[in-house]
């Protein structure tokens, strides 16, 4: 098992580095000159050339990537210019390991940007995750147990309605009606726990997390319903009944254990995918998270930030994959890794 985890983590790291290379290749292949975006209104060819050199965009993509990878392990400095460092050390930004690059547009190390934006996205993802897991799995179980009744149809049908609408529609709908028109909830704005305490933090998360949860809830209701129904047909449930167990124990110990294992897999992967930022939800609610930052970076040709966020998101997805696989061996005794 330990050897398996080590192997998976090593493979994951290789994958992350490969993804950074792919992102850079795409970026370098673009016909737009990224240095132009760092140069401002009073740009002269000399200044442009100087910026391009400072950013490393004059190098071939592979050596840019090698520099970047080295920075992750040993740190780096921006711009990398020994002559400048001697003459004007105050213009050199230090970027200690793990260095994810330096954003010329915002004049900050990428890592600082990510550290600032990640809690926003992570809060949103986790809050939404908790909402859709409780509601989705719970309603899915209820629908399965009441299969074919009005309750079942109402649950599955209404979930489908939310699933059918685009995220921005649901988000704006909730925003306009619940917050602005009816004033049932305060207008959402992100407040970190450090700034406003847990209360304000949760208040700010309510609507965006609800929007995100509503998008995911339908899938979870249907999955849970299907898996519970499948589990209910298993022979081992008849055994449990024949033993004389009470129906509550049959449901919670025997039915759900079998039914919810596959849900855990899907849930882990979905959460991993969301931790790296949500683009539309953050946009609708004006949340300054990773998703929004990534869009900004991509549209302003800020390569270091784009690569940094891609890597963070990829790390979450890959980690979630490993965690889910390991978790599976813990949940299901039949699964063994070697």
């Amino acid at each position: 098992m330990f050897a398996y985890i080590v192997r998976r983590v090593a493979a994951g790291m290789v994958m992350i580095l490969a993804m950074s290379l792919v992102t850079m290749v795409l970026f370098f292949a673009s016909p737009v000159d990224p240095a132009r975006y760092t140069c401002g209104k009073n740009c002269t060819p000399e200044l442009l050339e100087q910026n391009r050199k400072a950013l490393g965009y004059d190098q071939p993509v592979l050596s840019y990537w090698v520099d970047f990878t080295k920075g992750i392990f040993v740190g780096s400095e921006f711009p990398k210019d020994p002559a400048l460092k001697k003459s004007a050390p105050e213009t050199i930004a230090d970027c200690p390991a793990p260095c994810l690059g330096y954003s010329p547009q915002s004049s900050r190390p990428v890592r600082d940007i990510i550290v600032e934006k990640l809690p926003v996205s992570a809060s949103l993802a986790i809050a939404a995750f908790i909402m859709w897991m409780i509601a989705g799995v719970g309603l899915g179980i209820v629908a399965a147990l009441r299969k074919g009744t009005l309750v079942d149809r109402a649950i599955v049908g209404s979930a489908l309605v939310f699933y059918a609408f685009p995220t921005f529609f649901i988000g704006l709908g909730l925003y306009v009606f619940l917050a602005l028109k009816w004033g049932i909830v305060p207008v959402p704005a992100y407040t970190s726990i450090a700034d406003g305490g847990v209360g304000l933090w949760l208040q700010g998360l309510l609507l965006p997390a609800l929007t995100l949860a509503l998008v995911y809830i339908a899938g979870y209701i249907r999955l849970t319903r299907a898996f519970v129904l499948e589990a209910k047909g298993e022979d081992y449930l008849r055994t449990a009944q024949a033993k004389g167990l009470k129906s509550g124990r049959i449901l919670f110990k025997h039915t759900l254990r079998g039914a919810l294992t596959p849900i855990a897999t899907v849930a882990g992967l979905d959460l991993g995918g969301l931790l790296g930022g949500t683009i539309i939800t953050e946009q609708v609610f004006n949340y300054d998270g990773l998703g929004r930052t990534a869009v900004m970076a991509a549209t302003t040709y800020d390569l270091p930030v784009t690569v940094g966020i891609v890597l963070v998101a990829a790390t979450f997805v890959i980690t979630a994959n490993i965690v889910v696989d390991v978790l599976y061996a813990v949940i299901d005794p039949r699964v063994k890794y070697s």
Partner: protein
Amino acid sequence: MSTWVPTEGTSEALLSVRDLKVTFPTEDGLVKAVDGLTFDLNAGETLGIVGESGSGKSVTSQAIMGLHRGTRAKVEGSIGFEGRDLLKLEDEELRVMRGRDIAMIFQDPLSALHPYYTVGNQIVEAYKIHHGKTSKSAARAHVIDMLERVGIPNPQKRIDQYPHEFSGGMRQRAMIAMALVNNPRLVIADEPTTALDVTVQAQILDLLMDLQKEMNSAIIIITHDLGVVAEMADKIMVMYGGKAVEGGTADQTFYSAEHPYTWGLLQSMPRIDRERLERLQPIPGNPPSLISPPSGCAFHPRCAYRDDENLGCSTIVPEFDVQDWHPVRCLIPAPKRKAIFDTEIRTPSS
């Protein structure tokens, strides 16, 4: 044994089933899975219920366990167990009896055991639910003892293993340990050897017989294989299309079978005393529809001895006379049936 069941009201049997009917409403019509079944089973006795798929044998066992409750199935008649009608009990009263007084052994132990829990966990659970006051360690000790009794080697270690770590035969032994852990008075074994290797089948049947002697439980063994019940059963009931077609002692069923369907079962059974080149004779045709069964005798479309003109096999429904000592649901007169068996069915050595 005297008559198939005693006259009205005098039954002192452990289990006395009277006119049991189980029907399922479906879109195509009402499925009569079990249609008027009557039998008795005394304490310590073994009843073999034999029939092909769809004959209603498994549905009967599930009706006795009350496993149809909460489904759309309708169960009528009466199932007397120690003087109480199981069909009239409250759900909670019946639940308490399940596993404690009546236990069940299923066909495929791999799917009947929960893959995520250890064998010990599942058997301890079966014991603890009916012995709430017993401590965990005492229950565990009892289960280890039980595993030993069903012939599982090294039970202290095996108790903490998962079903997938057991072989097929060992799994069925564990299943038997789970069924017998509360010393039930009635054990229903639904095709207990069908999923097992032939070499293991006899071991499992021997084990069941030994444990039955030790614990004095009654057993209903459900099978499609007459060979399985040949040695084990005191009584045999042959079912066809949801109805009993022949009932009697094991000897009667083997050595003086009188129903053409039973003959068919006997002839489709491989036998060591037959000529090697002689082919097994399958019963022609398909099992009857349970929604609209054939008119008259349900077996007549497949019967080689039918005689519509003189006996009316396709119009008259034959009776199963439960007051007979060897009831047979057939219109052919008894002397003629005996003659056919003696001349055509019985093999020289039997």
